[in-house]
């Protein structure tokens, strides 16, 4: 592995957790998320971005890969369908209370379903914000304006809160 590839790998590893979490939430499926994260990694190794844009570059590439994957018929069955292996894996943890596992799975499923009901740009904007990106960076990833990103985030948050029956309508004290 050349020096530049070692640097690229270290950079990727530094952002891996955040990227994978984002992809799991975006796709609803760990296997798909892993495939896409790995493909982003390979592209990152092949053509590392210049400057300090690595994180935004990785998320943008991964977001585009998810979009492309969602277009393919084979992926569509998996993406956002809630049938992924992610929450099924929870069964394998013997240290957790079964009732707690079921409750957690149900909540996770509800959140994933609510996420899936959002428009793609709303979902991407909300999830990238969750990973700490600024509106300007999200706008670059989505190919839109900063003002649009704020609207997407606000709309997505209100939709999710409503679907998940989260109490967010009360007036300030």
């Amino acid at each position, binding site marked *: 592995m050349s020096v530049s590839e070692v640097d690229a790998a270290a950079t990727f590893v530094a952002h*891996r*957790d955040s990227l994978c979490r984002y992809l799991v939430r975006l796709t609803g499926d760990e296997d798909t998320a892993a495939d896409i994260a790995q493909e982003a990694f390979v592209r990152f190794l092949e053509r590392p971005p210049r400057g300090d844009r690595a994180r935004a570059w990785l998320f943008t590439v991964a977001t585009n890969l998810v979009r492309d994957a969602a277009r393919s018929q084979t992926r569509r069955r998996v993406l956002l369908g809630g049938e992924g292996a992610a929450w099924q894996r929870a069964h394998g943890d013997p240290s957790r209370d079964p009732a707690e596992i079921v409750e957690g799975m149900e909540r996770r499923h509800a959140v994933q379903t609510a996420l899936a009901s959002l428009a793609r740009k709303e979902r991407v904007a909300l999830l990238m914000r969750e990973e700490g990106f600024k*509106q300007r960076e999200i706008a670059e990833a989505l190919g839109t304006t900063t003002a649009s990103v704020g609207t997407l985030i606000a709309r997505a948050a209100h939709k999710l809160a409503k679907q998940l029956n989260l109490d967010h309508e009360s007036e300030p004290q």
Partner: protein
Amino acid sequence: MMTARNAHLLDHELVALIDDDGDRATLAEYTAHLAECSTCRGEAHRLRRALAAVSKDLSTIDVSSDFALPFVPSTQLVRRRISRQLATAAGIVAVTILSFRATEPLHALAQRAWQLLASEDTTPRIEAVETPTTQGQPVRPIMLQFVPQGSTVLIDIAVLQTTGTLTIRQSRHEFGRIHFPAAVETLVSESTIEIRNTPEQSASYVVEVPANVRTVRARLAGREQAVAVPQSGAIVLDLSARGAAR
């Protein structure tokens, strides 16, 4: 003193205010408006609560503990690189031919293209896919992937420890994995895992080997034993000085 604007704040301005995402002057303008406008104050409150509630619920969706990136065969990386190089080389050949009007012998051009192809290192690699986090964050175990070259893997553990175990089990993947604490230096190559631990350590290690590996040679403080890899379940070896002495 900042003058509050008259128009209501837009969604992206509210989000910017909540996330502290913008320059100081602009955010101060939004804040000043909020102080005077009950409509925007209410809207900001609703949005802040929605974002907080959604954020809390999103935390239920995270990668599972056994999440791992799939292994990329080195051949795939090499193939992709060669494809790119071929395209580059073809372009160089074409430009050279045009520039020199084919006065240079063709075999020399072919040789130049081949030299370009062979110029980059294309040796197989082992991918590191996990690293400890720093800056006060909890340190997660490191996981490394490896691809055994034969049917045996050697695990060489330098010394007996205060406490700890070595767990050996079959991998669900076509590659092997080792999980180990960040505090322990580990060298992983094809078919050999070298763990450079210290006697003071209380560390455990999990080694998963693919199905083609039948036997693991566990060398513990210089003493070697062969361990048959179970098809299900796991073999657990005690690495503590007290346990190993029994």
